[in-house]
């Protein structure tokens, strides 16, 4: 806990030192929700078959998908960026000679970004529901938070794999960027996966965000079909194994870098 709170306090202090950005970083969220609201207005009143299983309301559909996509980039990049920044500034070795474990240091170095991304996700949904009247089943909030927690665990796992790569090979990896871009394309963030060509639609179940988006919509949108909830839940649960795999890879990469003498190299 000491390690996590030290990093949280450090990152808050650094963010606070950029006060203008600190106060205005959430303003863009409001503009994004307003944009989605007006775009959804174009489709109001039209019967779109692809949206029928989600209750037919595009604003609620896209709001849930966009909210989850806000997690993708920060969570998969936070840990490798934390390691890289520490290596460049020379603080990585200084931290590793404290009593904190290497794994704890790397995980804690990304937790502020994770927390900010989660707050932004919840704010996006809250603004959509309270100000713009998204049609949500409010009784399902605990289940929705469970989906968010599983999604966070999966994305953190991918982020730790990315950090492990940076530590072991002293260079940033291209996979998480491709993962995020691919997810935005085929995970049904802005549109249902059923509108994709068949060859792309078969790829979408291979990405965890597909199941997170589907599950959150089936559980939370008023009037959505709940018959496929189980399948998406178990798929998402399976993807959660990425978290322990990420922790294991991170440990191995730190051992490898200690042996290679490359902890501070970048």
């Amino acid at each position, binding site marked *: 806990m000491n390690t996590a709170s030290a990093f949280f306090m450090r990152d808050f*202090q650094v963010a606070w030192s950029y006060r203008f950005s600190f106060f205005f970083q959430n303003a863009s969220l409001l503009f994004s929700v307003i944009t989605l609201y007006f775009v959804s207005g174009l489709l109001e009143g039209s019967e779109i078959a692809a949206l029928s299983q989600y209750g037919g309301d595009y604003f609620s559909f896209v709001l849930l998908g966009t909210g989850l996509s806000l997690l993708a980039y920060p969570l998969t990049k936070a840990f490798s960026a934390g390691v890289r920044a520490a290596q460049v500034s020379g603080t990585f070795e200084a931290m590793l000679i404290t*009593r904190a474990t290497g794994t704890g240091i790397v995980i804690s170095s990304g937790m502020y970004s994770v927390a900010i991304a989660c707050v932004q996700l919840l704010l996006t949904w809250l603004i959509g529901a309270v100000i713009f009247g998204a049609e949500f089943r409010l009784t399902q909030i605990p289940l929705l938070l469970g989906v968010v927690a599983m999604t966070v665990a999966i994305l953190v796992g991918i982020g730790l794999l990315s950090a492990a790569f940076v530590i072991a090979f002293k260079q940033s990896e291209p996979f998480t960027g491709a993962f995020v871009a691919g997810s935005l394309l085929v995970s049904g963030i802005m549109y249902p996966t059923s509108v994709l060509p068949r060859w792309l639609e078969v790829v979408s179940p291979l990405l965890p965000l597909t199941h997170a988006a589907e599950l959150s919509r089936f559980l939370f949108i008023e009037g959505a079909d709940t018959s496929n909830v189980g399948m998406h839940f178990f798929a998402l649960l399976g993807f959660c194994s990425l978290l322990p795999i990420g922790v294991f890879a991170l440990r191995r990469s730190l051992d490898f870098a200690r042996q290679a003498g490359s902890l501070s190299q970048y």
Partner: protein
Amino acid sequence: MPEMIIVDSVEKAFRRQSVSALLRRSAPSHSVLRGVTLEIAEGDYLALLGANGVGKTTLLKAIATLLLPDAGTVTVLGSDIRTDGDRVRRNVGYVLADERSFHWRLTGEENLHFFAKLDGMAAGDRVARARFLLDRLDLSSAGDRPFGQYSTGMKQRLAVARALLKRPRVLLMDEPTRSIDPAHAADVWRLVREEVEAVSGCLVLVTHQIQEALSLCSRVAILADGEIALDTTAQQMERFASDLDGFSVSVRGLSRDGLIQLRAVPGVCDVRIASQVAGEQVLEVATSSGDLPLGGFIEELTGLGATVCSLQRATPLQAVVQRLLAGTPQKAGAA
């Protein structure tokens, strides 16, 4: 006195590290430590000397668990660095050679609190200890200023404060006063002595300044060719250095052939390149005691087309090391 650090037959080679090299497994390697054995006891103040690149920092990093040897063992207060790193790190304070190793947007005091928290120090102790160390190192008035605004010397003093935070019994210092002015360097050494004595600890100091090594340390070890070539007392070293004097000079644009002409300047016993970074060479010049032929030397340098960047009086480390390894207090030029 009980042994606090035992380095036994440690070997370390560095391999080229890349994805392709990893797959080939037979990547070319550069051997740095070739069977280093060293014991450091409670109360020892050991200066670790040697030329650039001989593995002094590598050895310190191994003791601090930042690097694992390929062969041999390192134990600190009975704990093996490989199997019991956590226990080792509880007892080790390390002043890294890189004084930039702080968070630049945080103040000096916030930086110390951050590292103290990682070391598991309680809140009250953290605050009191940070203030005490800032005060002793003449940084209390700068404690609330962002680290990015510190001068190089202030950054190095803060690095010393960080290493002392947890009251370590084993203190490792890698050129800790390189950019600190003499008055503040004296403050650092006074504090270090008090802290080491208070916890019945030991100090391992890597330095290129002979005067610093002699004034602080009771023991001197010389690392050469990947091994401890000599482990002796400071008094012995002083005897070998007593008739040597010299200066170090940073230059640009000097060719290797120029060294031969510089060695021929009257009053100069020897000239060596101590380091070379980004086109700037640091020359270590050995002269006879009390005879500094500065005018003739600089005239020769400029005649060779070199530009002098800085110059300071310093006993030539490499000349003393050569004498020590040879075993006789002979003239530097003959070493």
